[in-house]
């Protein structure tokens, strides 16, 4: 690229940067990001996509731009790793490269890398573990028996080579109980327990697996059954429990909201996540203007704070003839209150913050 071309591109970039600042919209961010991608400046394209998504979190185009930028970054890193491996091969670099190739979905390159890795380092079980992970991903996605057999074969090989490989044994145990080979899975998980005595997640997994019926130990026929029926024999531990914990966390939010509504002076209180809302106080229905004000103000403050470069908006108080509207927001979760003049605003804001933080905490645990 000669100097004049380069100057033209920089001029265009400056124009697009300014446009994205002055007229922020998914299209302006995508246009700018696309130029960066064309220039192979994927890190900048990723930054643009992230900035855009902070303002327009539901934009499909911006998500695509972010994926594209991340993909470009991974490809760049893969090229760097390949060069390094040619100069000085080592298992750590092979592992990183193979993981990138899984993320990129490049199975041909992954097989070539793992083959080279196992030839150069025949005592390293890592290549088998990574191949097993890749096959397992495909199996869980398509429920194809062939992929499952390959996954089990690779993971068994990794466990044979390194009996203390916690990850390989755990993945093997998990896939075995999911297809119905509960007894064989328990053997692996109990062997794992010897290494990870204090792991509460493992204890919970063992309790969950022990409670499931065993369908035998013929892995091939169990995998064929999975493919035939199009579903796994047993649910995962988290899938078996979510309803109870979700109900529980909703109940907690409802209780906290009731507590806020009882603070003297508070007239309306709401907890909003996405398009759903829990309300307390004098709110007639979902069309109550207070709910709309809370949503609009939360979005506007978020945009203001981002553009002013003062971080993320967390709390706001709007005063007017209606009294006060207090809002506490984090990500897509927000809680708001309408209260009279003279209400203890610090107490209200502290309670709202508790609701939002508590909901996020339970949200991460439910997931």
């Amino acid at each position, binding site marked *: 690229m000669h100097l004049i071309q380069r100057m033209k591109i920089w001029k265009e970039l400056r124009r697009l940067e300014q446009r994205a*600042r*002055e007229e922020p919209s998914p299209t302006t961010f995508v246009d700018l990001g696309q130029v960066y991608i064309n220039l192979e400046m994927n890190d900048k394209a990723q930054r643009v996509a992230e900035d855009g998504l902070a303002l327009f979190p539901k934009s499909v185009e911006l998500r695509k731009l972010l994926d594209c930028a991340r993909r470009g970054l991974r490809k760049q890193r893969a090229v760097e790793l390949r060069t390094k491996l040619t100069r000085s091969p080592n298992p750590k670099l092979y592992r990183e490269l193979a993981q990138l190739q899984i993320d990129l979905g490049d199975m041909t390159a992954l097989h070539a890398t793992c083959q080279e890795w196992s030839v150069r380092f025949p005592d390293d079980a890592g290549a088998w573990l990574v191949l097993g992970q890749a096959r397992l991903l495909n199996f869980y996605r398509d429920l194809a028996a062939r992929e499952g057999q390959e996954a089990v074969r690779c993971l068994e090989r990794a466990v044979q080579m390194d009996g203390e490989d916690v990850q390989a044994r755990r993945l093997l145990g998990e896939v075995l109980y999911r297809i119905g080979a509960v007894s064989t899975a328990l053997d692996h998980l109990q062997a794992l327990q010897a290494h990870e005595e204090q792991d509460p997640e493992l204890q919970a997994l063992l309790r969950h697996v022990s409670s499931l019926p065993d369908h035998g130990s013929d892995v091939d026929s169990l995998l064929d059954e999975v493919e035939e029926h199009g579903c796994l024999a047993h649910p995962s531990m988290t899938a078996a429990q979510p309803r109870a914990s979700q109900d529980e966390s909703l109940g907690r939010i409802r209780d906290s909201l009731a507590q806020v509504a009882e603070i003297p002076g508070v007239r309306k209180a709401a907890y909003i996540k996405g398009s759903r809302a829990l309300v307390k106080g004098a709110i007639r229905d979902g069309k109550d*203007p*207070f709910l*709309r*004000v809370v949503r*609009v*103000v939360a979005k*506007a*403050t978020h*945009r*203001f*704070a981002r*553009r*002013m*470069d*003062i*971080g*993320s*908006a*967390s*709390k*706001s*108080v*709007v*005063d*007017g*003839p*209606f009294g006060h509207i207090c809002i506490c927001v984090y990500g897509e979760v927000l809680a708001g209150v309408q209260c009279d003049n003279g209400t203890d605003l610090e107490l209200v804001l502290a309670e709202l913050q508790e609701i939002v933080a508590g909901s996020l905490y339970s949200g991460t645990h439910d997931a």
Partner: protein
Amino acid sequence: MSKIQEMVVELRSTPGIKGVALITSDGLVAAESLDERYRSEVVAGLTSYLLMTTNRSLREGGLGQCTQFVLHATHGKAVFTTLDDSYLVVLFDQFADLTAARREVQGIASRLRRATRLA
């Protein structure tokens, strides 16, 4: 220096305050004293956007107009006070105690109201 500008500069000297601006309701800067990191036209544009959006949703809900708006963010705070045909914007760092600074802001806001009426 005009009287309004003097008041803006005076308020800016309060500890924790990183910038003060008087913005007309149509988004023009009438007076300002801002930290280097803030550009007056950006502050004006964003203030106008925030308050117009808020006021529109309040009006549509039959709730009237916003008189003051306090915003807390992770790296800063802001207080917007509605004057007659303008907004007083005060930007703080994240450590500022808004309860303590509120009196100063209210005092200057009242003086600005009088001065803008006279002007």
